[in-house]
């Protein structure tokens, strides 16, 4: 892997993506440190105010400061996206590696994975979130379950490819333990393929979290969420377009940045697979 990295210059997509990604993070941190507004405080006198110096992104229909709410929304979205990615990746990689390494488990594990994959991701996520009820923890569970199959599948295919290599065969012949082989030979060699999927998963998690919150099965009100804010502002779009513009723009910005990093990583780490989309 390191050899490939040296040969290829860091892809411009990765750099642009990371720069784009740091902007909302900085805004979120600086915004919450400096904010003078309470994100939950309603103010009937200042409702639907246009963006101005006091209210950087204006106020919503009950007079809450949109900028403060967006900064919190970014934090909530990123935290959920990160947790979902970590949990989904950990479990997905385990299932993928086990099913590829221990052939006996393959039938059962892959049947379950195929079964879950027959439900479109977002529908599964909506149903699970609806079943578990709104709330940060439940969204993390719902989204993680929805992404495990894809991650398991990618991991499994990558593992099968590595298993067919001679150095793994020789390690098996030498009598190295399974754990040793998995952590020293398989994991390092599948990472370059899996990490691309991980980045896309992160992007997808943030997009899907916003959909869930928009539909009302996501983050519990009154906690600010970017998707929920778009839903709140729907009815006021003609008189106060800023209410939905800023949260929507923020979601798009973060997801685009992550997808760019994913595309860049895919070209950088897997040059043979270059041009896959």
């Amino acid at each position: 892997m390191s050899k490939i990295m040296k040969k290829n210059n860091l892809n411009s997509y990765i750099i642009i993506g990371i720069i784009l990604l740091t902007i909302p993070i900085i805004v979120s941190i600086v915004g919450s440190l400096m904010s003078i507004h309470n994100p939950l405080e309603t103010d009937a006198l200042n409702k639907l105010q246009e963006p101005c110096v006091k209210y950087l992104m204006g106020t919503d229909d009950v007079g809450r400061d949109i900028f403060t709410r967006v900064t919190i929304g970014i934090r909530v979205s990123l935290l959920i996206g990160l947790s979902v990615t970590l949990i989904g990746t950990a479990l997905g990689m385990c299932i993928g590696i086990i099913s590829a390494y221990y052939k006996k488990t393959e039938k059962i594990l892959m049947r379950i994975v195929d079964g879950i994959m027959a439900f479109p991701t977002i529908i599964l996520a909506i149903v699970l979130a609806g079943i578990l009820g709104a709330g940060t923890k439940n969204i993390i569970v719902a989204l993680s379950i929805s992404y495990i199959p894809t991650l398991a599948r990618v991991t499994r295919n990558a593992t099968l490819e590595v298993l067919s290599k001679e150095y793994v065969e020789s390690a098996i012949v030498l009598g190295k333990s399974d754990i040793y082989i998995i952590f020293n030979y398989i994991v390092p060699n599948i990472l370059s393929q899996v990490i691309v999927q991980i980045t896309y998963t992160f992007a997808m998690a943030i997009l899907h979290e916003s959909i869930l919150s928009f539909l009302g099965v996501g983050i519990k009100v009154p906690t600010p969420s970017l998707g929920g804010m778009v839903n709140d502002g729907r009815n006021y779009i003609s008189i106060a377009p800023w209410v939905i513009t800023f949260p929507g723009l923020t979601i798009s910005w973060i997801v685009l940045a992550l997808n760019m990093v994913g595309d860049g990583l895919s070209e950088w780490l897997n040059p043979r697979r270059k041009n896959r989309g």
Partner: protein
Amino acid sequence: MIRYIFKRLLHSIPLIIAITIISFFIVHWMPGDPIRTMLGDKAPEEQVVRMREELNLDKPLYEQFQIWLKELVRMDFGESIMWKESVVQIVKSRIEPTFLLALIGIIISVLLGVPLGIVSARVHGKIMEKILSVLSLLSISLPAFWIAIIMIQIFGVKFQVFPVAGYHTIENFGILIALKDLMLPGLVLGIMHSGQIGRMTKASMLEIMKQDYLKTARASGISEHIVLNYYALKPALTSVVVVIGFSFAALLAGAVVIEQIFNIPGIGNLTITAILNRDYPVIQVVLLFIAIIFIIVNIITDIVCAFINPKVRYENE
């Protein structure tokens, strides 16, 4: 060919068993008492007990699963808790707008996405490719619900070109009015999926353009135009079929959100209403229905591919 189709159908049986089990158990995983949630805390105890018996929720889980399987065989899943109508009837009545919407979506996304992919593959390595790839990336990254709201504001409210909400059935109002209702949501759905189709088309075009026989064709002095449009495009067709099959499932899923925004009484709208009201029989059937559609679309895609590309057929026979 028939052998291939038969084999393909046989392969999907374990999958169908798996989704039947998942559709049943997913609902029973819900925390709390469904009847209490439905009737509210103030409901009298006897009403709760009666309802629980009616829905067979008092029986042990394996017995409930047996009942579910029997219902499945008879294709009769009882009544919806919320609407007090036959679940099958409810789902049936919601199919039309969703399929029409997905169909419009797929036509628009293919019309936009396939040329996008072909052009991007052709300008590979040039600045134009970067611009096009950012465009398709945007279509994947923007939240569809946000774009839908903005489109409603522009085309529905400001210019009033399209109706902004609701649906008139074909049976009562004719196909034209039904199509007009679905034009704007279909457009949003199509645009939001064209990026994915463009990316997949581009990837397969680039894969094909590396093939040796195209080099031979070029070396023999056949013009680049003919090489790309005839020699390369034809095998790329197989991948486009796969892309369309794959997208249909994604579009069906995307329709869930779009239907909610445009207030179209389709499967997606039904799913969300059923979930918010904890209407278990409906959720189970809708889930099963969506997964079955997904499997059927996959089978058709595979068969069409095998039909176009004999190599696929022989490798799997």
